[in-house]
């Protein structure tokens, strides 16, 4: 009777010991993940913890971010040092190409294209005095769409604030 009680107690202790081991890694992982929030460029990093050893994988914005993540992770309680830092540094994205859809030069050819396009639309007048095609008059909603489509193909922004739409 006594023996079974003792063995039960031992079994219980073993069980407690085992289960207490598991959440520990989970706790460390949560702790590291929280700590990494201090590094804004670490959004795509992954944290793995095995028996207290932390492995960082994923992408970091730059070398500073990589080093900072390691530092932050190392400072978390329960982490076995050193932290395995397998973070890769993402090269900075190529600068965004300037939009292709605008021509800045209002030359004779562009003006002619605009005039050609507007020629068959009734009720619209175009003025190039300001350097930007200024449209005025009153057109139907369908014609207004044609005008905007023309703007896109001429690759020049029109000023249509004075262009009215027929109700």
């Amino acid at each position, binding site marked *: 009777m006594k023996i079974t009680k003792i063995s039960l107690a031992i079994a219980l202790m073993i069980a407690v010991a085992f289960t207490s081991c598991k959440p520990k890694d989970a706790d460390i992982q949560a702790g590291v993940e929280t700590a990494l929030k201090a590094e804004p460029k670490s959004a795509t990093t992954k944290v793995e913890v095995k028996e207290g050893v932390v492995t960082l994988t994923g992408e970091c914005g730059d070398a500073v971010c990589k080093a900072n993540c390691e530092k932050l992770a190392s400072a978390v309680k329960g982490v076995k040092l050193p932290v395995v830092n397998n973070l890769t540094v993402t090269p900075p994205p190529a600068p965004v190409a300037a939009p292709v*859809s605008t021509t800045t030069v209002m030359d004779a050819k562009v003006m*002619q*294209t605009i005039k050609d396009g507007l020629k*068959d639309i009734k009720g619209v007048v175009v003025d190039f005095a300001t350097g930007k095609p200024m449209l005025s008059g009153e057109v139907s*909603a369908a014609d207004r769409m044609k005008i905007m489509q023309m703007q896109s193909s001429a690759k020049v*922004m029109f000023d249509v604030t004075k*262009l009215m739409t027929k109700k």
Partner: protein
Amino acid sequence: MALQDKYAELVQAAHAHGVANFSVAEQNGVLHVSGTAANTATYDALWALYAKIDPDMASGDLMMNIDIKADAGGQLKVTTDASNLNIRNTPSTEGEVVGKAAHGETVTLVEKTDDSWWKVRTADGEEGYAFAQYLSPM
């Protein structure tokens, strides 16, 4: 970012319709979207969305540079309101009229000379430049 939010529906639709080479860029308060729509229906749908998001399209904050996929040899429909479409010997209204295509007629694309003028060939064999705005890829 605000402009991208305003036209988010348009951008999503462009992706959903599989607009090729689609790009979105914001510059000086204007959102530039460009790409090539597979067909006229997609093109029309995107323009209808633009008109819905920005009534009267008067804000001047969107440059929608979407064209329709048209390959040399492809068929184009003449979409004038009613009149004939002039076919000229140079890509300009200065060019001499060398032929005419009737409203609703089908012509063949020879080359996209630029965004405004396309070289076409009529069923009668007349070849020259026509204003692209009145040509819809079929």
